[in-house]
């Protein structure tokens, strides 16, 4: 237990703020604790301060306020080259005037590691990313994916405990990206390294990470494991940003003893919801429901759940699923996704139906 206590703070951001121009805060009050061996992804829209956080951790930017700790020690005054943090840059930053081997040799040479040792480590690192036969080439002679793997090998070859990756797969096509996502997570777990990974691709974040930190407006909006993040978003930004989401606006009528909240939608209908970051009756709320948690098949609807009237606007056959666009409580963009099962009804535009869901899938969030 004591062990995990100290591990709990391998990387720690404590009330960190950052401003570039002295006028606006790019990072506002960042608090984050990472245990050793965790794969944490920073996810957020462009300009939300993800790269800035990474650069502060790597030492290329200084925090305006607050403290960053690595292994329990403050690192604010340690220059980048003494932090021992591996880094994969968005554009790979492979040195164009050196061969792949020389690129990998560089971090070892500056650490005064002997020649034979160096060669063994380089070979191991290149084999690890399946680039063993490319050692004599120059970066310009490799494809994007190959360069990416070399960049990864170079960040790992000196065996850092912490590796930072800033959108390393941004430039790759979808197929290669998925392959590399798998390879990176696989390697990270195999080597037991701690990884901070930056992306603005939410699928990438959900599939790769132990935990995801959703950034917006210089703050972490929510930090949680992928499933929790998707199923239990803590505010409307996260609900909107992660996955597809339906929202209905309304006002809290009352908070019941069973913990559920009664919400009156703007068109007067009443529904049961799980209150998340709302507390007072009378407060405006944005109700969020995932499209795949909505039911219209009467046989599948649970007894006692509130149902709402809906009109079918569009029905799209997508093979494995059906995607239906409905008008619900004045919202024309209400999406329902249903599995293509044998007993599933195929709806027609114009059809009037009843829809429903479980109260725990319906979350009352801030407006």
């Amino acid at each position: 237990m004591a062990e995990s206590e100290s591990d709990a703070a391998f990387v720690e951001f404590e009330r960190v703020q950052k401003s570039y121009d002295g006028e606006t805060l790019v990072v506002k009050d960042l608090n984050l604790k990472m245990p050793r061996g965790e794969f944490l992804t920073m996810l957020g829209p462009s300009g939300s301060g993800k790269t800035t956080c990474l650069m502060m951790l790597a030492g290329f930017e200084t925090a305006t306020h607050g403290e960053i700790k690595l292994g329990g020690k403050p690192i604010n005054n340690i220059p980048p080259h003494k932090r021992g943090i591996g880094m994969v840059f968005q554009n790979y930053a492979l040195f164009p005037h050196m061969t792949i081997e020389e690129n990998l040799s560089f971090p070892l040479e500056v650490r005064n590691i002997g020649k034979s040792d160096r060669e063994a480590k380089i070979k191991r690192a290149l084999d690890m990313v399946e680039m063993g036969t490319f050692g004599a080439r120059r970066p310009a002679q490799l494809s994007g994916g190959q360069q990416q793997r070399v960049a990864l090998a170079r960040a790992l070859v000196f065996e850092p405990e912490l590796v930072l990756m800033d959108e390393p797969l941004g430039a790759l096509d979808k197929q290669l990206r998925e392959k590399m996502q798998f390879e990176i997570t696989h390697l990270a777990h195999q080597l037991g390294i701690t990884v901070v990974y930056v992306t603005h691709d939410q699928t990438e974040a959900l599939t790769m990470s132990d935990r995801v930190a959703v950034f917006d407006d210089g703050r972490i909006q929510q930090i949680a494991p992928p499933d929790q993040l998707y199923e239990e978003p803590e505010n409307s930004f996260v609900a909107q940003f992660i996955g597809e989401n339906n929202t209905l606006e309304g006002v809290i009528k009352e908070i019941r003893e069973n913990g559920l909240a009664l919400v009156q939608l703007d068109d007067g209908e009443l529904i049961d919801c799980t209150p998340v970051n709302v507390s007072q009756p009378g407060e405006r709320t944005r109700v969020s429901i995932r499209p795949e948690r909505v039911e219209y098949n009467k046989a599948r609807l649970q007894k006692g759940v509130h149902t709402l009237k809906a009109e079918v606007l569009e029905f799209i056959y997508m093979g494995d699923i059906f995607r239906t666009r409905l008008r619900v409580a004045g919202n024309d963009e209400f999406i329902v996704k249903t599995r293509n099962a044998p007993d599933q009804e195929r709806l027609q535009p114009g059809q009037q139906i009843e829809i429903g869901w479980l109260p725990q899938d319906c979350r009352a969030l801030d407006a």
Partner: protein
Amino acid sequence: MSDTSGPILAADGTPLKKKLQQTLFRSRARAFGLVFPLLAFIIIAFILPIILLLSQSVWDSRYADLMPESTKAVAGWDSSTPPTEEMAAAMVTDLVQARENKTIGKVATRVNRELSGTRSLFTKTARSAAKLEAPYLGALIDRDEDWGKIETWAAIKVAAKKFNPSYLASAVDMKYNADGTFEREDEGRRIHVKLFWRTLEISFLVTVFTLLLGYPVAYLLSTLPVRTSNLLLILVLLPFWTSLLVRTTAWIAMLQGQGVLNDLFVVFGIATDEDRFSLIYNKTGTLIAMTHILLPFMILPLYSVMKTIPPSYVRAAKSMGARPSTAFWRVYFPQSVPGIGAGALLVFILAIGYYITPALVGGQDGQMISNIIDFHMRRSLNWNLAAALGLVLLVFVLFLFWLYDRIVGIDNMKLG
């Protein structure tokens, strides 16, 4: 299925190859038409004059044209035996003719270049040549005993050659002898090679100074935010918008004995009032002024290359544990080499032909080869020697270019 055997046809039935050529010809003709005016201008105003002038460095038919008889006579002479009666007779004929045609001055000047002192020999003898009677050799020697010397006739033999390496030889402090051999000029007359070396030395030093001063500036410019760097770039470019003459004169005001800089030195006690530094009208002056004037030519190519080096390279190096100095020398510097190459080549080649600045602030030991070329063009009117010096300079620069290409590679160079 259709025509696998015959030529492939375009949509209108003409063979595809012919059609392609037609289209290409039209676009080529258009392209040629667009560049033609400039091309013609360059050929007429630049390439042709250069070729004409440079050809003078090895071609001088003045003597042969004006003195045809003696040219023929000395051609067969072995240049070691005493002059013959036949040569003397031809010479007298030519002298009479030259005096009549009023061309004797030109002839005398030409021969004088090969052997100084012969000018008066020719003009003086020509004046009374019509009165001379056979045997001519004796008569000539009677007029002036120099006519009996082998030396004089050897100079004539050299001057009579149309295709003539003597100018090129003298451009590199060699002497071309009448018997076709070369030898070094006497110690006291070797001036060109020394001047070439000094030109090289000054150009090299100016290149090094501009690099040392320009590199940090270019680096700073490339790292600053665009708004600030644009402002600073204007300051770098400002000298471009000022006349070269004005800038050079400004340096005179700065550097001269009673100038701003020396006054400051005196004020701060670095120099005494009686013993001021001589910063101008010598090599120092040339170096200072040329370094300043050529600095933008170093900064701009450096800047344009450095601007393309992403900061992530140095960051990557540091994140891998390299100290800032290691990161600079092993990662940043090698990538800035194309800029150094371009800037250094540009500055060096501009410096090697520099003329106004050394002429104004160079004094005696700050003169460069272009100043002596200018001297021969405008003062001594020895265009042939000027052309020969120019040719040597040109060949040398081309050689450097070739060397640079071999070592760095010309396609490695970025000018912007």
